[in-house]
């Protein structure tokens, strides 16, 4: 089974169920491969004994006759999810070696479905960043060009899927942290409606924006994972939506209502926000996106021009709200109860200062300072309150747009992956790169990135699809139809 790593979730689950391989064999092969490619910086930690014990348990369930789309399938988790038996670090020195006494709900849900945990994946520290260069441990490298970033903050997650070090993974998306690295690495990823996946056990960055989602090679595999991950968790997370769990695969492969097999998306109106197709987007990205949209027309969809007039405002709004929430969420890392404590200090205040200065990296400290500032007495109304008001208007813009279309499409990011180190001295340039993913995050809408071809230097380009609230199944159907007639998502970087 030397090519086992080339299989997606569906193929691997079927092979395990049919006893062509076992969960243990799959886990061993993938662990070996992940270690072999550790120069990519995808994984932060392994626990081979635990992984193999989980795989063994899955094999026992299969031997007992149980079947399931994830039973025995090895996956890996972004290190934002607390996971028993592995360090849970959020990519930060602050939590180096931290062992959580409980599993995140998303982790527990996938374990219940029989998935096996291969390890924890690298990310920007506390999910703050878009290049994975803010990891306190090491950078992750884009397998399409290892001199380039994989995007972030779920950079390790995207690398693991793209380099075939895991068939699928979990990620988190606060302002684009699933969609942008998926775009940079030719991976399919979806961020569901805010509140659809429990945030319990996700180390918080910005509470009103954080949302978990799967990243995989195909929309179909994403649907399989999301079905297991999502669902109400109202006893642990007050922002969890009290809606029954659903089967996100239910619309895959069937044509839209009233459409045909030849034109499965007939009747689908795809809205193209003019703000996503202007000068702010690189020509090679736009060309790839337009190519994908032409394919959608062939599938029966019609393209509609729309406007999301406050797209530009989403950058200042996001970079007020997210740091404000982060500055408070990260206050618990004070060196008192868990996490890093300075070795030497004069008094309590000195302990706080040293522990936090040593434990947090520069970008995290920058955001804590911005957040503290915008919440301060005298500035709250001008910044935080104003940002919340504009956030509501941004959400309203989407509702106005959805009166004209069923799905919104555009680039996931304005450029392809940049070179490691190119933007590290310019935080604002990093922030501007989030422009196409921030609006849906602020509105709490589901969004995904689908491989849409390649730009200059054969670097991947992702097509972003944004749906209305709870339209995940329709989004996945839309992406799946595209992946039935294109093969962008099957392409892997040379040597992987």
């Amino acid at each position, binding site marked *: 089974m030397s090519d086992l790593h080339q299989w997606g979730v569906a193929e691997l689950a079927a092979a395990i169920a049919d006893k062509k391989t076992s969960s243990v064999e799959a886990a061993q092969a993938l662990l070996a491969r992940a270690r072999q490619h550790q120069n990519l910086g995808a994984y932060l930690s392994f626990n081979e004994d635990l992984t193999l014990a989980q795989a063994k348990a899955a094999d026992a369930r299969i031997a007992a006759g149980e079947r399931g789309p994830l039973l025995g399938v090895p996956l890996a988790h972004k290190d934002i*999810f*607390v996971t028993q038996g592995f360090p*849970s670090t*959020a990519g930060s020195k602050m*939590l180096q070696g*931290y062992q*959580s*006494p*409980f599993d*995140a709900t998303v982790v527990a849900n996938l374990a219940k479905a029989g998935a096996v945990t291969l390890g924890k994946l690298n990310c920007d520290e506390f999910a703050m960043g878009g290049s994975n260069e803010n990891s306190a441990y090491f950078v992750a490298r884009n397998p399409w060009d290892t001199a380039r970033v994989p995007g972030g903050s779920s950079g390790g997650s995207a690398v693991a899927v793209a380099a075939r070090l895991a068939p699928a993974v979990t990620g988190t998306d606060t302002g684009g942290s699933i969609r942008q690295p998926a775009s940079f690495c030719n991976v399919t990823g979806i961020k569901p409606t805010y509140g659809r996946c429990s*945030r*319990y*056990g*996700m*180390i*918080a960055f*910005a*509470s*009103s924006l954080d949302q978990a989602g799967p990243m995989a090679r195909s929309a179909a595999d994403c649907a399989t994972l999301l079905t297991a991950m999502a669902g109400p968790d*109202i*006893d*642990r*997370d*007050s*922002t969890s939506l009290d809606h029954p769990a659903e089967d996100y695969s239910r619309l895959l492969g069937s044509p839209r209502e009233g459409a045909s097999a030849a034109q499965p998306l007939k009747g689908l109106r795809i809205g193209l926000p003019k703000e996503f197709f202007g000068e702010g987007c690189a020509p090679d990205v736009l060309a790839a996106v337009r190519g994908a949209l032409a394919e959608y027309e062939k599938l029966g969809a019609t393209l509609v021009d729309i406007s999301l007039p406050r797209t530009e405002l989403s950058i200042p709004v996001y970079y007020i709200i997210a740091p*404000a*929430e982060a*500055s*408070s969420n*990260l*206050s*618990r890392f*004070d060196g*008192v*109860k*868990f996490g890093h404590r300075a070795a030497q200090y004069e008094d*309590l205040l000195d302990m*706080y200062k040293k522990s936090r200065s040593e434990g947090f990296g520069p970008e995290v400290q920058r955001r804590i300072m911005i957040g*503290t500032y915008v*919440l*301060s*007495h005298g500035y*709250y109304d001008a910044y*935080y309150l104003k940002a919340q008001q504009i956030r509501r208007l941004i959400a309203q813009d989407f509702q106005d747009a959805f009166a004209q279309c069923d799905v919104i499409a555009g680039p996931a990011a304005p450029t392809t992956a940049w070179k490691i180190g190119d933007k590290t001295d310019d935080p604002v340039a990093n922030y501007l790169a989030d422009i196409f993913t921030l609006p849906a995050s602020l509105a709490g809408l589901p969004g995904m990135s689908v491989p849409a071809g390649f730009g200059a230097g054969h670097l991947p380009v992702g097509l972003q699809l944004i749906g209305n609230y709870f339209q995940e199944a329709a989004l996945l159907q839309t992406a799946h139809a595209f992946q039935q007639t294109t093969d962008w998502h099957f392409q892997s970087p040379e040597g992987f």
Partner: protein
Amino acid sequence: MSDKKKASLLVQGYEVVIGFETHAQLATQSKIFSRAPTAFGAEPNTQACAVDLALPGTLPVMNREAVACAIRLGLALGSHIAEQSVFARKNYFYPDLPKGYQISQFEIPVVQGGEVSFYLGDEKKSVRLVRAHLEEDAGKSLHEDFHGLSGIDLNRAGTPLLEIVTEPDIRSSAEAVAYAKELHKIVTWIGICDGNMQEGSFRCDANVSVRKPGEPLGTRREIKNLNSFKFMQQAIDYEVRWQIEQIEDGLAIQQATVLFDPDTGETRAMRTKEDAADYRYFPDPDLPPLVIERSWVDEVKASMPELPRQMAERLVADYGLPEYDATTLTQSPAMAAYFETAAKASGQPKMASNWIMGEVSRRLNNEEKDIAQAPVNAATLAALLKRISDGTVSNNAGKQVMDALWAGEGQDVDAVIEAKGLRQMNDAGALETIIDEVMAANAPMVEQFRAGKDKAFNALVGLVMKASKGKANPQQVNDVLRQKLG
């Protein structure tokens, strides 16, 4: 209020202005945002779960019972119960504050307005509430036994509190204590707080300032953590004197937080306004707005007991009790229930009231017992009152019966009366014989009475009662003696 009365409240020509902030710990089984238990006195850190410890990834989930407590208070005090209120984060660093922020309510609290009414002597007073909001308690820092280090106990972290804030309506330390006692009575009466001040279940902060009448409000100092009514009065009196002295000496009052030291009887400043923190309040994104539907309020309303004020008014109307009696008897639901049972069973409400406020309360106070622990229950008291009112025993003999019952020398009133030989002499023939003997033996006294000395009559009654060993009915003695003395 008359000008004269107003003037009498002034201290050295200054008007005292007090507002209260009270933290009532809610009597819920589990914490406000987690499922950990709230019981007092457990080993450190045994009653704190992952949420209370603020472990990475944990989130708060509202305890509905705590909200029900807030609704009960709002209903009891005639407040507006907000259909939607908002939890906010109060951000500050302290080792016993695990998240680095306290979840509280800031701009939109759950309980808005309302008032607390009570009697100060025979004068009815009202203190208006600004608000009452839900929040979580912090843990405790322990500075002893750690050899220069501090210990942190997070058992209390996340315990639900209602912070009840008044307008600055209070004008004296006595009124402050009366307010606090009334509020204490209400929160225990409606069952939302156990009221244990020693254990910190009911903590008061008093904002005190003074001013010349008619002038704008003076600068206030906040006396923190008053945990007994006695200290409350002492602390406020000291603080008022101190502030007046400062002003008289030409010094300005600095806004400050002060603590009362019961050993010295003085208040001293902990921190001044200059080092006040910027708490950076903002709505907690982990908790959606708290929505209280009308149906929930109605449901809570249906489970509310009769409130002390209403009950006192009813006792006046139904039993003809004086206002003072009614107020005293409605100190606690148990006391009121004791009265009503005794009054109904004996058919003698005023007598029951007198006995409960006198004989029963005196004995309870001596033994530092609660009415619920009284060895004589209301039905037994009623049986005794019946025997007094039907003349079987005298009032004085009744007290002896009470002593015996209290001491556990029997349960049955009639049996105790017989055993102690306290039955009143109702045999007219026997009484006449005794009176005749007393008159014969005290002829000079009889003569004095007949010569117009009324005092001699009382002396003769006393002698007859003594001769009957207290068993004679005093009224009957009076009647027969007067008749014989002609």
